[in-house]
């Protein structure tokens, strides 16, 4: 199975790098929600355009924003 973001081998949905990025993304949503009251979709948009966001996280956030999961 291929990673949803890149062409690397995936364990589940993502390769090892993007899986770690995805987990971080999910984990930090609570902090954002509490801080700004944003929805998941808004959160993905904000994270994807933030200059401090890691590029693997950006790729996952952009992918999720495109799909229904977003």
């Amino acid at each position, binding site marked *: 199975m291929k990673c949803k973001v890149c062409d690397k081998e995936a364990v589940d949905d993502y390769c090892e*790098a993007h899986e*770690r*990025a995805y987990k*971080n*993304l999910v*984990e*930090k949503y609570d*902090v*954002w929600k*509490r*801080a*700004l*009251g944003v929805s998941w979709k808004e959160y993905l948009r904000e*994270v994807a355009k*933030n200059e*401090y*966001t*890691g*590029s*693997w*996280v950006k790729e996952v956030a952009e992918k999720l924003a495109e799909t229904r999961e977003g």
Partner: protein
Amino acid sequence: MPPLEKYVLIVTEKPEAARRIAQALDKEGKPEKVEENGVPYFRAVRDRNLVVVPALGHLYTVVHERGRRSYYPVFNFKWAPRHLAERGAKNIQTWIEVITKLADGADEFIAACDYDLEGSLIGYCILKYACKNKENDAKRMKFSTLTKSELEKAYEELLPNLDFGLIEAGKTRHEVDWLYGINLSRALTLAAKRWSGRYTTLSTGRVQGPTLRFLVEREKDIQCFVPTPFWNIKAEAEVKRSVYEAEYEKAKIEMQAEADTIVRACSGKSGKIKRVEVKKFRQMPPVPFDVGSLQAEAYRLFGYTPRGTLNIAERLYLEALISYPRTSSQKLPPVIDYRVIITSLSRNRKFRKSALTLLKKTELKPNEGKKSDPAHPAVYPTGNLPERPLSDPEKKIFNLVVWRFMAVFGEPAVKQSVKLTVDVNAHMFYLRGKQILKTGWMSLYEPYVKTEEVILPPIKEGETVRLRKVIREDKFINPPSRYNPSSLLKKMEEEGIGTKATRADIVETLYNRNYILEKRIFVTGLGFDVTEVLNEYCPSVISVELTRELERKMEQIQNHEENRENVLMTAVDQLKPLLTEFKTQETAIGEALSNAIKKARLEERTIGKCPHCGTGKLMILYSRKTGKRFIGCTNYFKKLCETSFPLPQRGTVKPERKDCHSCGWPLLLVRMKGRRPWRLCFNPDCPLKKERKAAS
């Protein structure tokens, strides 16, 4: 030239050191320089005739004893002249021939190479191989500066033997590093070549592997980083008609709504001073430079790489301006005679004022650091002043060493901090003042210290302060910072891998192999993939523990607590199963590495997103018809985008990984022979280009 009667042959590490030593030891200070087949040496006369001959660093190295280049594992090695192992080292052969000839006419031998692992090994190899087994008869000169007085003393008080502890440790280090380097690098390179049919040098090593791993781990943390928001509140506080910056009691507010409530509650309001806290504290002078702290300071102040700083420091050492720089010591023993050095430095107008201040002190006592080195003191100026105009970087490093040396003898600085707590509607704001009461050592290190003072007016508890403006600042937690060459060196030192002499070279190798890029270090795809492959198939190679353990054992050899054979056997025992496993997986590894190389080559030519179609990538391409290079969009092949831009045809062109500050398009770095590299914005409509055109 008349033949000399028997003489003492003194072997040094470099030509400039030979000249200095000959000049210091010759009774008239005028040694005769002789050149034979391009190899310089010096004839001097003292109590007897002396011949001082330099090496060119290492003349001998570890080589594969016999066999082809294209296989592994290889465990049979020997020490051989460098020209047999390295291309471009042809002059070494002549060099060795001249030394051998000079050795034939000598009846006493002295090693006068730098007193450390490498220097001792250089001297030993020359005495053993070029001078035909004179290593057990030779004596040793030990010195930390190339000043006349110290060299004369070292010659009068010769050590009766070579330092075999250091030599054994040095030999073992080279041999262990060779075993790891040759086997693992060959394994990687051959695996990739067998899969793809193309040759690319890939390398790893005992220290290189774990160092790259630190960088990869940090890169992963950065790439997986999700910033979280927080807010802080700043205010402009009016105190006795002056305005000062105040900060809210909570440095980090985690909810925007809370931050807004505070801003609303405090804007334009007045509050009472609830508490005035005044603290006085002493700040001790800095400690003397060891090589690591010199490299770190030069990076902080001038942006010089550790390797660059070390090269400059070595030049200054060879000119007898500073002491031996490859030292771990932060101590300055009284024997170097602080007062004489400072008096001597006072001859220079730039240092005079500080030097005279110090000379007025009845006692000069340096503020020493914890680290020590049995072979050398900390880096210090010898007191000699430059005999030639120094280049700008040399001047900067020399001045830095001088100012630092003087600063360590300074008095502690006395500073005062004031903290006012203002209560505004039960919200606390802090106003902070800082003042230097006594500059102490800071005035001796003035070019390099920042002295920002905030002096608050005299104020008492109960007085009123008005918050003119209260501002909410939107912040994000920053990702972990990238290593730079200096902080990476520090990390290697903390982790106990590599030595002070080799760390800078290892960082340099990582750049040369294209595993890392830029000063704020980025790991390339190739760097990632090589580490991933090693992590999957031979994780011990990138384990810090393994290399740290070997470092410990090599230190034990130096102290005669361990022997070389044991350490070599351990290394071979560790490598054998690892390489066998590697071989069984060679196809898979070769495929992974070949893909990584292919990707890296593509990455090297990829500039960024196409500004026209937005979906393709701009790449440096070559025309099949003309062979000329240009920038084209990858969507061209799908017939979706025809964007293209011309490129200079001479020199090399690489993506700069930075955007033009005027138009935001990606920049290219162009290098041409004989010209300084320059940044090229290829956007024909870049406003900066138009501005420049208009200006000219």
